[in-house]
């Protein structure tokens, strides 16, 4: 008997009655989602058609289920709807029918049958190894021990939501449960962060689709986030940006400026320091997004966003971020700069050669 996950994706989708045309439409959507040219769609179709559905184990720890809700509240017939066909979701607390020992057995079986191949998706943060293990348990096991046991033979780990990616709300000061992020704990496996409170559903599926199509994980930024979705700041793509550039700011939520749609910076918008796809992909099937609904961006896809100053404080400086994270964030910029500098390396050499040393006599003439 063939294992469940042995079915190709094409077979599985056809089992679900998806037409060829529907499938191609899906591939085109996937291409645009991953910022690939539409000409890639046939290649994606071919790859997806043949792709084996990878076994996925979804672990939920200290979370609010918002991330799973985000994923399942998606609109048909889009990727989100089909995600459950893309993958063989072998274990998921909230979604699976099995309970009790049967549920745990499903996890162990999936791990056993797909050793080294399966993906682990985590939502929620984890009380660290030094914390009281009783703060959060499943079937009598601490979150920490379940996570470590499950990732041991995983191919990669996807941390979905800000809690899993960066600690999120559970980690907000004073962090009573000693909550830690997945990347704090898992060091020897690729960890992809898909932060957001919750993350945009298409971003979750986009990452999985990328893995299926290309057989590898997408390119990440300094915070382990896929660049395709987190490569630009909210601010850079915000439709209120022209007002920001003109210095037209709403001063309260109901003043004339707010009614004219002016920039929300002074009302606490964290758009300039937040990297996410909200401004381009929007929420609820492209209906709207927070800034469009008149609310400043909270910066939910950034580390420590709960502790980075008040949500309604204009320009709160996230002094809690350490220099290492700041450097990490700057690294993406440095790559850009490196490229530019390479272009003008000759220019730099010429410049150094034309610089003349300064002497005391020359300085004295200026006195």
């Amino acid at each position: 008997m063939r294992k469940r996950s042995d079915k190709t994706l094409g077979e599985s989708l056809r089992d679900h009655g998806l037409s060829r045309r529907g499938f191609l439409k899906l591939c085109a959507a996937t291409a645009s989602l991953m910022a690939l040219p539409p000409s890639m769609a046939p290649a994606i179709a071919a790859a997806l058609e043949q792709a084996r559905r990878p076994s996925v184990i979804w672990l939920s720890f200290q979370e609010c289920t918002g991330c799973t809700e985000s994923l399942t509240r998606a609109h048909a017939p889009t990727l989100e709807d089909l995600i459950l066909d893309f993958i063989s979701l072998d274990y998921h607390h909230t979604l699976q029918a099995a309970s009790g020992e049967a549920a745990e057995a499903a996890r162990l079986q999936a791990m056993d049958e797909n050793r080294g191949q399966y993906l682990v998706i985590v939502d929620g943060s984890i009380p660290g190894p030094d914390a009281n293990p009783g703060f959060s348990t499943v079937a009598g096991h601490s979150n920490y021990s379940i996570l470590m046991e499950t990732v041991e033979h995983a191919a990669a780990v996807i941390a979905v939501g800000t809690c899993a990616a960066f600690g999120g709300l559970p980690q907000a000061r004073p962090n009573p449960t000693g909550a830690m992020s997945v990347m704090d704990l898992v060091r020897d496996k690729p960890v992809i962060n898909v932060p957001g409170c919750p993350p945009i559903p298409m971003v979750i599926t986009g990452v999985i689709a990328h893995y299926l199509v290309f057989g590898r994980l997408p390119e990440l930024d300094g915070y382990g986030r896929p660049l395709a979705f987190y490569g630009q700041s909210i601010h850079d793509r915000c439709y209120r940006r022209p007002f920001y550039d003109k210095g037209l700011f709403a001063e309260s939520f109901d003043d004339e400026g707010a009614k004219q749609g002016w920039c929300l910076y002074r009302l606490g918008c964290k758009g300039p320091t937040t990297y996410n796809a909200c401004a381009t992909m929007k929420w609820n099937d492209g209906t709207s997004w927070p800034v469009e609904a008149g609310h400043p961006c909270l910066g939910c896809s950034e580390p420590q966003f709960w502790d980075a100053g008040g949500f309604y404080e204009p320009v709160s400086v996230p002094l809690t971020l350490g220099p290492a994270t700041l450097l990490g964030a700057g690294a993406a910029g440095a790559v850009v700069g490196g490229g530019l500098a390479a272009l003008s390396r000759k220019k730099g050499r010429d410049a150094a050669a034309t610089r003349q040393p300064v002497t005391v006599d020359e300085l004295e003439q200026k006195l």
Partner: protein
Amino acid sequence: MSELTLERGLAALRAEIDAPTAAFFSSCVHCGLCAQACPFYLETGDPKYTPILKLEPLRRVWENEFTLWGRIKGLLGLQKKVTDEMLAEWEELVYDSCSLCGRCSVVCPVGNDLYAMIRKTREGMVQSGHAPEGLISASVRAITTGSPMGLQWKTLAVQIQHVESSSGLTVPVDREGAEYLVLLSSMEIINFPEYLEAITKIFDHAGISWTLSTQCFEATNAGIQIGNKDIAAELVERVVAAAETLRVSKVISPECGHAYTAIRWEGPNLIGRPYPFRVFHIIEVLDELRAAGRIKTEGKEDDRLSLHDPCNLARKSGVIQQQRNLMALVAENFVDLKEHGKYQWCCGAGGGVSSNERAEELKMAAFKRKKAQIEEVAPERMVTMCATCRTQLEEGLEAFNMEIPVVGLTEMIAEHLVERD
């Protein structure tokens, strides 16, 4: 005779542009957080003091000459050129309104090192002849007399005599093979001679072999403050030569924050080779001695004390815990300012601001941040470990009629040493 011109200024700015600079300019998101971090902007409320704006001359040279877009603009005649008038206008922004405190650099969300770029911009300013008089004179004096204040060894010799007669100890001079070479700043020699006395006592107490050098006793670096590599390198070379003559393995920087970063971090890059010795701030040395149990103290200060962390020491060099360990040794009632350590606020006088008379008013404006911080915790005395910070704190508190004395940490430690019998 050659002279400083716009062309030389532009050439110097061009020479300063490297990959990080290009990355910084292309990644600025114009969020304005750096303004919120700068005491000069916050206390004046004048947007022209936004740190990223202080870099406009450097940014224009980069855009015009190093980017494709700039070159296209050039073809279309849309380039905004850097002119002599522009540099004259920016002189105040680059020198008077920046203490090189580096606070803007730590808050920039994309990691732009604004302070380092202001330092770079000053290179172009000097070469185009747009540096403040006070800094030009200090640099000229540093090169010609060995001290930015024009101080000679004979002045120091008088202070040494005072120290020796009041302490009954010998101040070692030109002692070859000593472990530590102690460097001073002119400011310490003139304003705070008690510092030298304190070191003499502590080192005697701990049994440290040390020396001063008649060849070079001053390590403040006017070249760094004005922003010129050539002068800065020459001043560093003098320290290296003195240390080599005396064959010391360790050099102690003056209690001057910028002298410390100059000699410790910039020095080897300026002269293009590693030092044959290690550099410490006195606070680092004292904390090591404390940890090794070589400093025995008795009694504690019981009034409420707080601490001003010098930017160069805390933010730029990570010396933060050491001074607190030392405070704990001698203070019973210590309270930290709310923002301290890495994110403390600058006193407003560093980076050459205090040597630039024209900047007096701005310097006092920037001090208001510190003042507000001090008022918040209401200490009876302030403690610090940088001569420039100490002078500024004293002057500032006096200007605002606040009767809070300022003491040096080293001196305070010296006062509590266990007497030997």
